[in-house]
Every structure is written in C-alpha cells, then in structure tokens.
C-alpha cells in the first residue's frame, strides 16, 4: 500500500480541464464497466437462480423446504438432509484443517529460516493446484476402500459406548461424511494456511523482539505477541476455509456416499448440497430441477454471508495492523 493518499497524487492536466480527449473518457468508462461487472454478475446470480427455483419454494413452502424427506419419486423435496450434510462435512474439515494450517503458518513465519520456508510454500501451492476432481478420484478409488476397514474396526469397537457409539458406530462405509470431511480438509488447508501466514506476518517485529527480550520461549512469544495480534485475522481465514468447504462440489460428490440421511453416525454415507446438485441435476426436471436450483440458491446465500463476514474481519484486522 502506498502511503500517499489520492488527494496528494498528481492528476493529468487534461483531467483538470473539461476538454478531455474522447479516447481517455472512453477508456475510463470501459474500466468502470469492467469493475461494475462484478456487482452485476453477483446480482444476476441471485436473481436468475432464485427465479429458476421459484416453483420449488412455492410448491413446498417454508416447512416443505426445511423438511427432512427428499424423495424425487414421491415428489417430496425437503432440503434439511443436505444442509445438515454440508454443515457436518464442513465442520469436520475445519476441525482437522485449522490446527494443521495454523501450525504450518507458525512454522513458516516463526520457526524456519526463509531459505527453508520457500520449498514449504511450494508444497502448499502444489496442494492447491491438485484439481477437485483428482481429489475425488483418489478419494473414491484409493482412500475410501482403504479407510473403510479402519472405520469398521473403530465402529465395532465403540458399539454400545454412549457418545462414541452414536458418533462412530455402525453402519460404516468408505464413502461417508467423515471421508468427505477429510478430503475437504486437504483441499482447504492451502487457503487457510496462506491467509493465516499473511495475518501472522503483519505482527510488528518489535513486539516479537520485546517478548524474546523478556526471556520468553518461542511458544510464550507466540502466545503473548503473535496470538493477540492475529486472532481476528485467523478467525477470518477459518471462516473463508469454511465457505470453501461448504461449496466444494466434485470431491464431495464422489466420496460422500450420496444418501440423503440425517444421522449422528459420521462414518455413514450422507449427502451435501453441492454434491446432490452435481449428481442429480442432469436427470432432473420440473420441481425436482427447481429444488436442486433452490439448493444452489441456499448454498449461494450461506457462502455469501460467510464470505462477507470473513472478508470484513480480515480487512478490519489488516487495517488495525497498519496502525491508526
């Protein structure tokens, strides 16, 4: 960021007089139009998808939309099972990805020298370029069959134990909420790591040095100097990761098991909003298609709200860091 404000900056002499060349004004209009395109697209997404979903909202009503039965053959289109699946897989992903991401971010900024940090950043970037469908392919053909055995032995071990039995007991399946959560965790780790790293890097060096000068160990320095400064920003990064996890489609569609159920059993097959859209939209028509479109609308609203909150938090904490 430059520290010079707009008012101090030089402006072309032509901007001061009214006789600006047509090309100059034309270019400004063009640039403005391109900028406005972002707002136009967001508004169009909201309007066009809602319009396509309207027959679902009108036939099912609020109670129908938020009911648990999704049975296209019987004409029942309740979204609750998918909302539940989306939230539960995203929660599993966040619980696994956040400690790992923050750990790597701290490792990169506080522990290793820059010479070592660069290859680690390459590895994280590599993680980010593996396409969603490749994660899904690996998940369904390699990972799910392998982990199914682990699930079933955990499942039989905890059967009858009060809370654990309800969470991890049978039925178990390789393609399940938990598998989807693990794959999503891999996929959101790069973004949470890079955002946390940016936030942690803004902690003033003088506070770090102050903590070390008082005899703090590295852990105490992180708790006393880094954490209070970066807390807010990391919460924002986590929310952005949550938004990503909720909207991630293809990997989830392949490994979640495609079964519209609400269950506390995390090792059981389930379904999520983006997954069911991807898997069933092709064959859908009428209210069925409107219902899937409506799931898209709900997903759009949920992710937009999360993203607005997250970006707000990140921007505010970035502004605070810069002083003022």
């Amino acid at each position, binding site marked *: 960021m430059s520290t010079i404000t707009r008012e101090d900056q*030089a402006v072309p002499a032509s901007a001061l007089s009214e006789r600006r060349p047509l*090309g100059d004004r034309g270019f400004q209009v063009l640039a403005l139009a391109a900028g406005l395109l972002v707002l136009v697209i967001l508004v169009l997404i909201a309007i066009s998808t809602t319009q396509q979903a309207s027959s679902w909202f009108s036939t099912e009503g609020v109670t129908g939309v938020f009911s648990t039965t999704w049975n296209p053959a019987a004409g029942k289109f309740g979204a609750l099972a998918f909302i539940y699946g989306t939230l539960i897989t995203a929660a599993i992903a966040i619980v696994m990805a956040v400690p790992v991401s923050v750990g790597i971010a701290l490792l990169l900024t506080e522990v290793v020298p820059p010479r070592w940090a660069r290859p680690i950043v390459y590895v994280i970037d590599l993680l980010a370029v593996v396409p969603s469908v490749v994660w899904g392919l690996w998940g369904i053909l390699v990972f799910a069959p392998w982990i199914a055995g682990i699930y079933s032995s955990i499942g039989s071990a905890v059967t009858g134990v009060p809370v654990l039995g309800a969470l991890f007991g049978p039925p178990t399946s390789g393609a399940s909420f938990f598998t989807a959560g693990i794959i999503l965790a891999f996929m959101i780790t790069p973004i949470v790591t890079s955002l946390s790293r940016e936030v942690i890097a803004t902690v003033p060096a003088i506070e770090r040095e102050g903590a070390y000068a008082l005899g703090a160990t590295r852990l105490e320095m992180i708790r006393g100097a880094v954490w209070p400064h970066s807390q807010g920003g990391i919460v924002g990064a986590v929310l952005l990761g949550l938004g990503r996890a909720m909207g991630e489609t293809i990997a989830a569609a*392949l490994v979640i098991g495609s079964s519209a159920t609400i269950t506390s059993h995390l090792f059981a097959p389930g379904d999520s909003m983006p997954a069911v859209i991807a898997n069933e939209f092709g064959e859908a028509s009428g209210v069925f298609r409107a219902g899937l479109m409506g799931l898209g609308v709900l997903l759009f609203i949920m992710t937009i709200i999360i993203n607005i909150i997250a970006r707000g938090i990140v921007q505010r904490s970035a502004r605070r860091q810069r002083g003022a």
Partner: protein
Amino acid sequence: MTVATEQPKLDLREPPSWRRTKNRIATALMVLAMVLVVIPLGLVLYTVIARGASVISWSFLTSSIPVQVAPANVGGIGPAIVGTIEIVGLATLLAVPLGVLGAIYLNEYGGKNALARVIGFMADVMTGVPSIVMGLFIFSIWVLHFGFSGFAGALALGCLMLPIVIRSSDEMLKLVPDSLREASYALGATRARVTLTVVLPAAVGGIVSGALLAVARAAGETAPLLFTILTVTTVNRNLFSGANTALPSQIFANATSPYVGAQARAWGAALTLVVIAFILMLVARFVTGRFTRQGR
C-alpha cells in the same frame, strides 16, 4: 568470615525446565502439521503418477474416447484435451481483459472512493462463490435459452476467473511506483495513455502470472462444466453450438464407472490435468521471478 572461596562456574545455558519442554513440544507439533499435509499430498501425486503413467502414451492423448467398457489399452482422451484447451482458452480471453480492466478501474480511477471499495470487497467475496453455483447461474441465463455449448462452459469458467484476475492484477498495479505516473502526467499524457503505456507494462509480469494461476484453477474445475457443456465423447470444434467435453468432466464421468478400463483412462486424464496445472504454476512462478528481478 571468609570471602567466597570459589566463583561457581557460570552456566549461561538456560536450565532444562517445563517451559522449554513445552516450547519443544509446540515446535514438534508444528513440524507434525507439515508432515500431516505432505503425506497425503505425496500419496495422491504418487497414485496419480503411478496409475496414470501406465496408460499415457501419444495415442492415449490423441485418440477418441471409447465406450466405458473398453479395456485400458483402447482409445484415449483426445476430444477431452481439445475441449479443455478450447473452453479454458475462450474463458481466458473473456476473463483476463475484463479482469485487468476492472483492476485498472479499482487502482487508477476509483482509488479510495466508496464504489471502488465496494467493488474490491465484492470481488473478494465473489472468489468464495461455489463453482457449482456458477454452473447453475450460466445454466439458467444461457443454457436454458441457447442450449448446451462450449461457450456456456467458458462463460461459467470466466465468471470464476474474473474476481481472481481482478484481485491479483490489483495487487500488482498497487506495486507500480507513483513517481512513474507523476512523471508521465508531467509530460502531459492523459490518464488512459499513462495507464496503457506506462503502468501496465510496468506491472505486466505480475499480471500475467496471476492470470496463469487463474487459468490453472479454471482448467481443473468440473462443477461449472457439468450443466453447461453436457459431457459428450466426441470432438466438437464449434464452441457456440452443441455439447462439448473437457478433461475434468471425463474424469468425473469415469470415476464412478465400475469398468477397470474407464478407471484407468480416468487416472491417465487426471495425470494429464495435474501436469497441465503444474506447468501453468511453474510458468507463473518463472514469470514472477523474472518480474521481481527486473523490478529491483
């Protein structure tokens, strides 16, 4: 009363304590976090390379897509590669110029005014819109009226790329020193001329590298293509009418197939896709590296 007979030997090293042990544990946990990420990444890349390399050959990359029951040594993924290049290429042509123009508005014209701040913020928010929603969006505004086509897929991918390009170009334009702009204004240049002939050339390396990363991301996206190009198995050179195909959609179609041959082709296509994304990333890094060296 005697003076201290002997000065105890000073040990400047901190004594072992619970504090230091905790510190060590914390460091070990951070390294463990790194390992937890490297292992699955290594496993995925290993599987993709091991299973993909055994099917990949020149004829695999160029021959047509057979029926799913066909064994692994029959046919290939030629049409999918052609489709991916066509669709991602068109998406790039749509999104990159518009994204760079948007960034020019944010940085050169808007500055700190309210509209530019809102647009910048919403561009950030737009990067979080799920890709499947982009697919549904293009389905409802384009496909319902004009039918499935490669162009619809390109529109959906373009919508995904646009905010990424705006954000990365904006960051790069911010790095161009104001003295360059001021010098050009002093020579009497208009703002459009300064932007096009001074500011953009100064930032072009970073803009290109940001655009390449956006292309890499778009090339791997499946969800926006599902309901816009309607995966077929033949080459369709006409982007503006008729269904098309792409690498990610073929992988998705084959991943759930029970046939070993189809799965093998999915691994081959996955390796091709990962290699494409990886090359784009390397080129982006190379361009950035050159750019920063020149900047110094």
